[in-house]
């Protein structure tokens, strides 16, 4: 199997504080890695390094053997990443053209339909409800059919409908061979999709391996065993 994501001996400091300490993690192509850990463990820092949004002091970070800045993953961070003063359609068209999606207008219409925003497509995002914003963010993230998806607590604050939508999108992405890394506190949803787990604690990787059926039955097992 091809190695899609490689982190080797990564150290990241914020001032004197080491947010990541000699962290090594490999994710194979087509797998879905649930990045687990308590608040402040270093999950967001790790994802930002993989997305090319944060520099690091020591070590190596690569996506398909290249710099993270050239990986162009589908990235969903804590913000929804869309413009308040553009409509849903304008936002998606902008990001589709930026990512050189083939036939961007058709792709945008397809995604508006998919996330059930067709009737609100020309409304400004600032007029959207929270749920509509979240669905638009999902469309923006998956719009260019990325080979790698980096999702930072994607289930947080989602309503039931958006959770279902995200779960379906993740399963579809995994089935088409995309590599997924998602950090989460929603263990049940994440473990249902994940093929692998990685537990981060105080900037160190405490455990990495395949997601087992025992973890599905008892989502808290990993924390009890390793932290």
């Amino acid at each position, binding site marked *: 199997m091809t190695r899609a994501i490689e982190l080797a001996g990564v150290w990241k400091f914020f001032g004197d504080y080491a947010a990541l300490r000699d962290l090594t993690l490999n994710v194979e192509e087509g797998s879905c890695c649930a990045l687990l850990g308590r608040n402040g463990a270093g999950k967001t820092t790790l994802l930002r390094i993989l997305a090319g949004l944060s*520099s690091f002091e020591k070590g190596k970070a690569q996506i398909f053997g290249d710099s993270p800045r050239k990986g162009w993953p589908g990235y969903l*961070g804590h913000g929804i990443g*869309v413009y308040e003063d*553009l409509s849903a359609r304008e936002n998606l068209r902008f990001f589709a053209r930026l990512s050189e999606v083939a036939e961007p207008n058709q792709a945008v219409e397809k995604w508006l339909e998919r996330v059930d925003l067709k009737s609100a497509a020309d409304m400004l995002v600032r007029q959207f409800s929270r749920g509509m914003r979240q669905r638009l963010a999902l469309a923006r993230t998956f719009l260019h059919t990325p080979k790698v998806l980096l999702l930072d607590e994607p289930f947080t604050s989602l309503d039931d409908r958006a959770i279902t939508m995200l779960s379906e999108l993740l399963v579809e992405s995994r089935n088409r061979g995309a590599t997924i890394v998602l950090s989460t506190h929603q263990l049940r949803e994440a473990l249902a999709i994940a093929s692998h787990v990685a537990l981060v604690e105080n900037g160190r990787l405490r455990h990495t391996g395949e997601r087992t059926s025992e973890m599905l039955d008892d989502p808290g097992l990993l924390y009890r065993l390793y932290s």
Partner: protein
Amino acid sequence: MRALLVARKDLAVELRTKESLNAAGAFAVVILLLFSFAFDPGPEMIHEIGGGLLWLVFVFAGALVFNRGFARELPNDCLDTLLVSPLSAADLILGKAISNFLLLVVVELISLFVFGIFYSVRWAVRPWELALLFLLATWGISILGSVFGALTVNLRLRELMVPVIIYPLLIPLLIATIELTNLLLTNQPLTASDFLWVKIIVVFDLVFTALAVLLADTILVG
């Protein structure tokens, strides 16, 4: 070209909100009016200080435009989304510079009309040379403003930092531009030595555009 996509998006947002245009345009007009009422300058004084007055108003108004340029990307973490996309950091800064440039040109046009009316100046006596000068100088101001807008985007005091940093760096460009503007407003012929000012403006534009492109990744990602 992805830089044009960014510029087009920014202009679409600006046309809808008019945040920068209202602030910078109103500021420029108010300063020109206040100066006119405070000093009641005669024709000779206008010939001496007209260029300086105009360009100081433009750079002060420009700071309002530059501050909004990257700050617009902060809500909802849009800047992160752009940096993760295939858009290069250089394209992002160039796109911002293009939209800032166009917005500043609009502010300059508004200001020129106000200047013409309240200072009784026929500023369009040599329109093409003046237009070329304005475009070259405005690009220099815009690219520098966009670079430092990017550098200071995450600072709490960015509204203060952008002007404090860019004004000293703009001194050579401003000196050259003010000299040439005064000559063109008073319809004086350009001598061979005056072309030194043109060279300074062109070199300034080229150097800072090249630096913006080369250092874009360091500026935006670190």
